[in-house]
């Protein structure tokens, strides 16, 4: 059995395939990395979207602020035109009226009064520098388009150093053909410095164009090189008869630094989590494989040890002799519930002559190899003393020398019996052991008898013997404590249980079967401790 289980174990652990990473781990790490990238992309797009929306809002606000600032220019020119009309276009009055305006706003380079209803436009008066429009030769063409209107009429950007923007106004309802024309200096460079940080538009890079298209020649001013690259938002503001185009981009994350960095954070955390979970999964997986291998190995060792224990135990128990017609003898040994240790329980039946036999049932305290070897040495010693003709009480006294509780930490209980199976006279001696149970048609009872201390305790006296005449239908059962003992139960309850179970035997089946039935009835789930049940039965 033991060889067989060893041979079988060679197949128990098939060689494991070694992967650098297990496919499951690889799959999960890949899936979670893909998920991380997807999530990062979503966060990025959402952030971009938010930035674009905020940029649109800021540009709209900037445009609104700009359009609120424009009417001032317009009203100065309209005032100048009204003054000119009221004073019949007196040049000196016009110049006097305009002088403080020019002083207050250094960007206004030139303001002039024109008479337009006499074919060619006629310059009536000039305040500040001469109009650039005239020197460029574009006056006639521009003024031919000027009509009475509430709005400024824009001449466009005039090349020069610096460049100027020209516009005119002819008050609504004007019949004398008077128009006021002004030229305003643009910044020397189209690029202006940064907007102060306190401005609501400090986060914007923007460019203004005259008209509704971002044409370089019509660039009024910009805070950044033009054309503006990247994502831009634009808004137009009415300016006279044309418009101003505001094109802007952000130079800062409008949704905030955290929002801008969020996708990096998501990417980094996601990757870290993916790798960490992959590592954990791999670690746990490998540990599990190792644990399973260990469990399988333990299971194998357990089975092997159980096999060894059972094999050894049965090797230590004797074959029973035949006792002749009319007398059956049988014995059962049950290993304790775990079955891992060999036990110290034993039985022996020795036929000494034609109608006489001796039997022994014993129990070495404790368990394991020590108890089993002690049991074996006691059993063989008993056989030796029996062969030399010692009676049972002498045998029990002599084996007391083989065991010393101080030295061996074990003691043994032994019941010895001498039975004349023809006359049915039985003599018993017990060293710490239960007396046998007698079952007959009269019922079941534990035989009375004085019990001497166990073997190994150090008793120097022969144990007392008691003799009984057994009835013709007797069954005698000798047993060890495994048959009657239950944890936490008074021993008498177990003895009563054995009595009632044994008395239920109807003698219809062989003694062996009857013993099996007694054991399975008493302990359907097996015994805690190992147990021996030995029976002798007379067939009337």
């Amino acid at each position: 059995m033991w060889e067989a289980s060893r041979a079988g174990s060679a197949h128990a652990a098939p060689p494991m395939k070694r992967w650098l990473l297990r496919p499951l781990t690889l799959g999960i790490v890949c899936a979670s990395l893909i998920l991380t990238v997807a999530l990062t992309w979503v966060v990025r797009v959402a952030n971009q979207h938010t930035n674009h929306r905020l940029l649109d809002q800021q540009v709209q606000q900037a445009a609104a602020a700009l359009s609120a600032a424009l009417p001032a220019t317009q009203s100065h020119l309209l005032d100048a035109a009204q003054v000119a009309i009221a004073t019949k276009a007196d040049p000196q009055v016009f110049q006097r009226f305009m002088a403080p305006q020019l002083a207050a706003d250094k960007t206004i380079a030139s303001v002039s009064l024109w008479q337009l209803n006499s074919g060619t436009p006629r310059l009536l008066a000039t305040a500040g520098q001469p109009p650039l429009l005239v020197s460029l030769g574009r006056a006639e063409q521009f003024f031919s388009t000027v009509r009475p209107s509430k709005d400024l009429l824009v001449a466009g950007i005039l090349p020069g150093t610096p460049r100027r923007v020209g516009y005119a106004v002819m008050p609504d309802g004007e019949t004398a053909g008077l128009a006021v024309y002004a030229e305003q200096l643009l910044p020397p460079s189209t690029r202006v410095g940064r907007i102060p940080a306190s401005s609501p538009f400090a986060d914007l890079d923007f460019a203004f164009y005259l008209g509704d298209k971002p044409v370089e020649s019509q660039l009024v001013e910009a805070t950044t090189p033009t054309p503006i690259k990247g994502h831009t938002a634009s808004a137009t503001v009415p300016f006279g008869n044309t418009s101003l185009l505001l094109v802007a981009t952000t130079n800062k994350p409008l949704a905030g630094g955290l929002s801008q960095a969020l996708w990096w954070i998501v990417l980094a955390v996601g990757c870290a989590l993916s790798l960490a979970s992959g590592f954990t999964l791999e670690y746990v997986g490998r540990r599990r494989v190792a644990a399973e291998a260990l469990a399988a190995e333990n299971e194998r060792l357990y089975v092997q040890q159980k096999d060894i224990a059972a094999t050894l135990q049965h090797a230590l128990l004797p074959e029973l002799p035949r006792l002749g017609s009319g007398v059956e003898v049988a014995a059962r040994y049950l290993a304790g519930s775990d079955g891992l240790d060999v036990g110290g329980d034993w039985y022996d039946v020795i036929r000494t002559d034609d109608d006489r036999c001796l039997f022994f049932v014993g129990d070495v305290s404790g368990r394991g190899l020590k108890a089993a070897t002690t049991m074996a040495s006691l059993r063989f010693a008993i056989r030796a003393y029996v062969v030399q003709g010692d009676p049972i009480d002498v045998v029990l006294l002599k084996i007391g020398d083989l065991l010393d509780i101080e030295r061996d930490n074990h003691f043994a209980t032994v019941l010895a019996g001498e039975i004349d199976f023809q006359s049915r006279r039985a003599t018993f001696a017990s060293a710490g052991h239960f007396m046998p149970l007698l079952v007959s048609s009269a019922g079941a009872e534990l035989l009375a008898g004085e019990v001497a201390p166990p073997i190994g305790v150090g008793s120097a006296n022969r144990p007392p013997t008691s003799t009984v005449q057994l009835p013709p239908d007797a069954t005698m059962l000798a047993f060890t404590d495994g048959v009657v003992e239950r944890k936490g139960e008074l021993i008498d309850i177990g003895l009563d249980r054995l009595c009632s179970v044994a008395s239920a035997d109807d003698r219809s089946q062989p003694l062996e079967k009857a013993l099996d039935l007694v054991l399975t009835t008493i302990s359907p789930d097996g015994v805690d401790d190992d147990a021996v049940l030995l029976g002798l039965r007379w067939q009337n």
Partner: protein
Amino acid sequence: MAELEEPRAWIRVTPNAEPLFVELGGQLDIASLPTIEADLDGLLRRDPARVVIDMHDVHFMDSSAVAMLIRLANHFGDVTLERVNPMVRRIVEVLGLSDHLSIGRGSA
């Protein structure tokens, strides 16, 4: 697994008492006795005139525990088991050890 391995047997020795007073308790069997083995060895190194062992909290005792009691009795000579419950008393009787292990009058 941990709950299976908790110590189920205990021993308490009252130092300097005369007679030496020892309390044993729990489930005394082959599995639990090794957990109090060091204390038992310590006890066997003492040399009092008399020993009283209080057994009232012993729930279970197997043959290993009986062996331990016999060794204590052999070592000290005068050992009395006190407050012994019926279960333990019957084990002592069944084993024919009534003369070896004297059971005190305070027992059930």
